[in-house]
């Protein structure tokens, strides 16, 4: 259990890790996440599940190297064991036939978007996906997303691939062109905030899958709390998907920066140690 079966690399900082977790592979649904701890001294970090193979008993995680824990994880090799892995956590995406779905994914957010796009397509929706990233190498899983989409639009900030511009530019063109019944957005918080503002303008129901600070991931600590429509909700048990028009993204952005200094210090110490 928890053995790394396969690793891969999408770009300089984005890695793919396939882990043996037969029970989770069997019970996970689109939208679910897991919490893992790389080693006995590690911290518990939440990661959304990008894919699962029930037969092989594996789940696929897509991880961006950002701090100590993600770096430790990305540096692990096939055969290594993750100390702790628990899941699936959170509420699954409500997948049903609604008509046309606009799926917006940004950066590593494209990974958890994949099973959701697949789910919506399989129940008979028309799916249009907009994938966005700063540059070409940050657009991941394009072929897999294509498999389950009627149309894929790629946006890059620097224009190195697809269209030049941010996600909302591509999304708005589609909204103006045809009727969209529901939108789902996963990516950096700022990107989700502006996508929500856009779809609110056009009155399109929108779900955003939030990424917050978590400790246990089972409702115990409340570190993942977020304001939604005037209520405090816990991302780990009430989410991770919420009505994007009701989420207080500005508060969320502040909260995500909460441990930044502690994390930076820890990361520097870690890198120093590695170089010794």
């Amino acid at each position: 259990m928890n053995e790394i079966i396969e690793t891969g690399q999408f770009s300089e900082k984005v890695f793919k890790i396939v882990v043996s977790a037969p029970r989770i592979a069997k019970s996970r649904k689109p939208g679910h996440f897991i919490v893992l701890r790389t080693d006995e001294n590690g911290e518990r970090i939440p990661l959304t599940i990008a894919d699962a193979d029930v037969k092989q008993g594996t789940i696929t995680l897509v991880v961006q190297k950002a701090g100590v824990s993600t770096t430790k994880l990305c540096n692990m090799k096939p055969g290594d064991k993750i100390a702790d892995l628990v899941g699936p956590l959170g509420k699954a995406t409500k997948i049903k036939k609604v008509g046309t779905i606009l799926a917006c994914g940004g950066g590593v957010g494209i990974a958890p978007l994949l099973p959701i796009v697949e789910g919506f397509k399989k129940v008979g929706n028309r799916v249009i996906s907009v994938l966005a990233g700063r540059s070409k190498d940050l657009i991941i899983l394009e072929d897999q997303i294509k498999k389950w989409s009627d149309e894929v639009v790629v946006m890059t900030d620097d224009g190195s691939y697809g269209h030049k511009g941010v996600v909302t530019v591509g999304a708005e063109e589609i909204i103006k062109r045809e009727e969209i019944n529901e939108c789902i957005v996963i990516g950096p918080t700022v990107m989700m905030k502006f996508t929500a503002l856009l779809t609110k303008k056009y009155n399109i129901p929108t779900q955003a899958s939030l990424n917050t600070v978590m400790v246990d991931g089972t409702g115990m600590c409340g570190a993942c709390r977020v304001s939604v429509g005037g209520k405090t909700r816990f991302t780990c048990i009430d989410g991770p998907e919420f009505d994007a028009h009701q989420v207080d993204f500005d508060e969320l952005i502040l909260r995500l920066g909460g441990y930044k200094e502690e994390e930076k210090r820890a990361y520097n110490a870690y890198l120093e140690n590695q170089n010794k």
Partner: protein
Amino acid sequence: MTDLSTRFFGLTLKNPVIAGSCGMTGNINRIVEIAKAKPGAIVLKSVFEEEIDLLYQKEQSSSYAQNLDPEYLNYFDYVIKEENLGKYLDLIQEAKKLVDVPIVASVSCITSNEWISYVKRLQDAGADAIELNLFIIPSDVKRTNEENERFYFESVRKVSEIVSIPVTLKVSYYFSNLAKMMKDLSSKGIAGITLFNRFYSPDINIEKEELTSGDVFSNSDEYLLPLRWTGILSSKVDCPIAATTGIHSAETAIKMILAGAGAVQIASAMYKEGPDVIGKITNGIEEWMKRKFYNSIKEFKGKLALHTDDITAYERVQFMNYFGNK
């Protein structure tokens, strides 16, 4: 075309007949029903600060509480509060989703403390405006006028600080100088004043010699009190006035508008006749306007209000066969 539109709650309402805050407006199915009668706005049932405390007391005295970790109930009033507020936020959201009429959230408070801070969340849930239902029954002989009055000003100040949607007040008539108080409050940036709260009133059963509850619903002759004060205040305060209590027919509603009310709030009549009464009153106003060749509300609103500082009928206390005009 007869234009029934009017301003209240800082909004342009399609007509001046508002479904007032009552038990019916606390239930989403009833709200949908009421909306079919096309009111100018719907004021949801109030969330009561007092009610939370009662529920907390009940929880503490329940038998199972004796066996608990004392820590469990230490702050349980906050849990109850959150439960009730949560339900209220859901109600606002559902109403906004299902109904195409302005939805006004109503908050009842007896202290200007943290309770006030919850209005921000009512705004976040999507309320179009907020009606602050403020009341102190001035029964405390140790409390000074200033203390009582400060509560109103403090509440208005705090609420205006934290929300951007319009805020109106619903008040009682228990002030030593009602006119000055309303004038001063109206200048603090509020979008309207509703006259008046209708309290639960005690009554006495002389056979059993015990206290009972007075009639829960207003009678159709109770409108005279708000009529007088609407007439006195409407031209003097810096915000629109809405009248409530005893408005059971189009005639009474028209009287209120003539006295200067921008809108009327209906509650007891909805209980007695069902939500359709709202449509009935609106149609009645419209018919009367046609008969009188009025094209819009503002053409007759305040026609019979007190417009000068002279003594007029509204200020008389003795019955005289006189009804003043400007």
